[in-house]
């Protein structure tokens, strides 16, 4: 965090190389975050550009109240939502891709079983609201992401994030258990 503040201060002094370092440090994470929302690679790239250009011009308003990375995620979230709203696109989870990732580590026979649950998985994801999805996205971006960081990005309380997260987790476990029982019959 101190390192980020130093970079911000240097940019505000006119050091463009520090802004270059900021891009290098966060570009990939912001892209993954944006892509998980807009689900279109080209659009996500454009939004990443917009995010960093906005960050540059609004850098003087960064108060240090939030972690710099959380501030970046907030801007990226707003830009992505703007795009979704403008284009009136209902961006839904690409269950095929998600399934591919989820089954990467499974054995072929397990994979087959899992395939059967694809429809149920779709139904499970449909039960999650926007905030639930955002929590999963942000938690999945980096294993060290803390609940307080997610709370800052989403501008909700840390306790809300935690209770929502554990509720999703519980729901998911009971869903999996149900699937496993069905496979055993």
């Amino acid at each position, binding site marked *: 965090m101190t390192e980020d503040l130093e970079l911000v201060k240097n*940019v*505000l*002094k*006119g*050091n*463009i190389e520090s*802004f*270059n370092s900021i*891009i*290098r440090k966060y*570009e*990939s994470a912001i*892209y*993954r975050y944006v*892509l*998980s929302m807009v*689900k279109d*690679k*080209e*659009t996500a*790239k*454009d939004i*990443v*550009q917009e995010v*960093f*250009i906005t960050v*540059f*011009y609004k*850098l*003087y*308003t960064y*108060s240090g109240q939030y972690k710099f990375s959380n501030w970046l995620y907030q801007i990226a979230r707003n830009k992505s939502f703007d795009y979704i709203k*403008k*284009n009136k696109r209902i961006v839904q*989870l690409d269950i095929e*891709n*998600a399934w591919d*990732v*989820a089954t990467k*580590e499974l054995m072929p026979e397990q994979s087959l079983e899992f395939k059967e649950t694809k429809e149920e*998985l779709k139904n499970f*994801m449909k039960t999650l609201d926007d905030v639930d*999805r955002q929590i*999963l*996205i942000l*938690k*999945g971006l980096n*294993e*060290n992401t*803390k*609940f307080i960081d997610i709370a800052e990005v989403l501008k909700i309380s840390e306790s809300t994030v*935690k209770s929502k*997260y*554990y509720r*999703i*987790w519980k729901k*998911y*476990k009971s869903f*999996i258990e149900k699937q496993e029982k069905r496979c055993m019959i």
Partner: protein
Amino acid sequence: MDCRKFTKDLCAYIAKDLSQEAYEAMAKHLEQCESCKSLYEYELKRYKQLLSMESVDASDYSSQRVEILNGIDKNRYGGSIMSRLSFFLKKNFLKYAATGITATAIIFICIFSIGYFKEINSRNNIAERPNKENTQPANTDQIAVPPVEPPSTTPVDTPVQENNPRMYSNEKLGISFTFLDSWDGKYTIKESEDGITVYFKSSDDTLLNNALLFCILAKSNTNSKYTDIIGQPRSFSAKGINYIVGGPTGGFDPSYKEYTEFLKMHDEVKDIVKTIKVVSSPQNNSGKIEDEVFFGEWTITRVVTSLSAGTYSKEDINNIIGKKMIFSKEKASSFGDNLESYDVEVNYPIYEKTLRSKEYFLTNWKIGFKQLGIICDSILEINVKGSSQGGCTLFLKEDGTMLVYGGGSFFELKKTSSLSEN
């Protein structure tokens, strides 16, 4: 730690939602207990599966660093007094907000009290002399005196449209915009070959050059210090020349008595920038149509991009590339959704010009400027129309090329010759 406690806290352990001490105790138990270890591995796998539901494949991402750096004004920070002042104020906002609110509240109470006592005093006076000067209102303080309209500071040679006295129009450059009512008498316009500059009109003439509100300057001649973004459009083309809309980079002394007024107007600049229009002047004083920058012979060179559904086959596109298009006062070529449309020639065409923003394209065409190779924030759309049939839609790009749309594709046009004046 026992297995029961471990099982209870396992979910929090995986989510890294435990204190350092509790986390270490869990890790220690994990090393010692085989059954808890297999439970942990099972739960961890489920946890990863859950998070992967929303994960994306970003392995083929190529860095946008160059594009980002090209999209920013690298001199934004460092030398500007305004940016430093603004940064300082924002940084210390909370510190000063409380003081500011208290001071405002005290001033407000004082003003209110003075007004209240004045009113009581005035009523008492009227009650004391009911027969004197009763044609005058009882409380003159409450009568709103209409402000005297200050003389306009717009230079004499500035063309102002009669139907909207606040609309400024520069037909030579092909640019118009509308000032706010509240700006009357408070600004000065300077015109040059390269553009238009609007200054805050200070009572101290020596401050003029430091009181820049905004400017519209030909891009090639734009000094980098004028490149603060102040609203949309940021850049546009008029009569074939690219203009950049820039804002103040400071210089107006904050200690000066008119600084608050200057800041107020500075905040309102974006509302004026919004009204910028490209003025088409179809006729000059002699009644003749003026030459347009896009008049001439053009060649279709390539497909720039295509929308998801189109009417042209690959073979059609090959036939289209290399075709000539002509735009002049007397005639214009046509282009549309089928090859036959090209054969229609429009006599004495009408050229309707509209400035289109990036957002307009995204909303209406579902296409980004980047895909069309447009660097500016806006582009000039030219609708070529005939009296009955034919015509086409052109877009004049900043690099002197044009785009013509038809059959779901945007084709690039390059000028091959200018038509000579007869």
